[in-house]
């Protein structure tokens, strides 16, 4: 069977509020689908095994590691990435707080942290520091350190 041709699959999905019909290899991750097919390169590739959270996106209201989701799995689903956070009016409050608190250095982990933190604040607008730290345990940062990131999320909280 390994010689049989593997056909691309068609999926319909909503990404940052916009409808997409995509033709993708069935074994392509959601991460690669976003970056290489849709051209949304805000979502970053890190460890590719679910440890670092750099590729975090939101699917139907839940944050997931997009490296551990296949593109075809989001057929019919609602995907939100870091590109969907700012509006023409300005940055999302979390993005503004990350800037003001200097909660980034190299920036590779930042989109993942932003999407994760948004997933928390969308449902719990006033989380405790402990809750924020627990929620963000699936996101790693190798340069800023976590205190500034936690402070930024607290600043964007109500």
């Amino acid at each position: 069977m390994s010689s049989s041709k593997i056909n691309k699959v068609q999926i319909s999905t909503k990404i940052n509020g916009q409808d997409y019909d995509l033709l993708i290899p069935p074994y392509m991750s959601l991460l690669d689908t976003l970056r290489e097919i849709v051209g949304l390169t805000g979502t970053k590739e890190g460890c590719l095994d679910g440890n670092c959270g750099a590729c975090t996106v939101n699917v139907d209201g839940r944050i997931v590691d997009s490296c551990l989701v296949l593109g075809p799995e989001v057929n019919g689903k609602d995907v939100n990435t870091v590109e969907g956070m700012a509006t023409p009016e300005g940055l999302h409050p979390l993005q503004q707080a990350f800037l003001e608190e200097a909660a980034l250095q190299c920036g590779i982990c930042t989109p993942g942290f932003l999407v994760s933190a948004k997933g928390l604040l969308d449902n719990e607008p006033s989380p405790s520091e402990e809750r924020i730290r627990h929620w963000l345990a699936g996101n790693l940062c190798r340069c800023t350190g976590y205190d500034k990131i936690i402070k930024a999320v607290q600043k964007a909280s109500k």
Partner: protein
Amino acid sequence: MHPFAYLAPTTVKEAVEVLNKYGDKARPLAGGTDLLVKARANVWDLDAVVDVKNIPELNKINFDSEGLTIGASVACCHIYENEQICDEYEGIVDAASIIGGIQIQSRAGLGGNLCNGAPSADGICPLIVNNAIAIIEGPNGKREVSVDDFCTGPSKTILENGELLVSIFLPKPKENFGSAYTRFIPRNEMDIAVAAVAASVKLSPDKNIIEDAKIALASVGPTPIVAEDAAKSLIGGTISDELINNAASLAKNAATPITDMRGTIEQRKDLVEVLTRRMITKSIERARG
């Protein structure tokens, strides 16, 4: 990733048919948090992954008079967000809340944790102490297997080619029942157990005598270990420090760990003793309410 086809059947029958057709060249995809890591590492030579999340039976959480049935693809977040599960199956919730981080818990579930068969799996020991039954469908029909007997070696289970774990059944907890699970990890979150213990107890009506008990150990052997002698030593006993310490020491004897990057044999055996003591105590507290 090595090319493979993506199949998304909507019935158990259809899933079993395709799994049977592909044999060891296909794997079911539930949360994908182990499967896609292994697929990327070319652990298997896959021709297809079979996404089972579109099959209603695998997505269901169902309570009836007999107990709780959790579909094999139900993610951890749906387990710990379910109030009735939190009330009745605390040991299971202990595990569902610490598997990976929030991103992993959105996808990973107990079914996949069980089928992945890792000796360090957080989800399996709590299932064991809750007397869980794996409901399996295959080319030859349905069979039910105690989770105690499900794992046969590291990443090895009793599942045959073509067989699909449909759900996990947990009998309704008896009166004065409590269960608990914990692991030791060097970090606070997002780590793999160096050693871990699940315990459950059922107490007498006056809540002073242990009428039934079960203890299971993770990450200290090639499969999760049911510490039978330790559990037996508790049954019929009046609750005391001596009773609990003795059971913990028997659990330590049941552990058969290896020394590896996560810990040494000695450390792991000592951890089993400490964690068993704590989990019996916690189960008793929970059973007393």
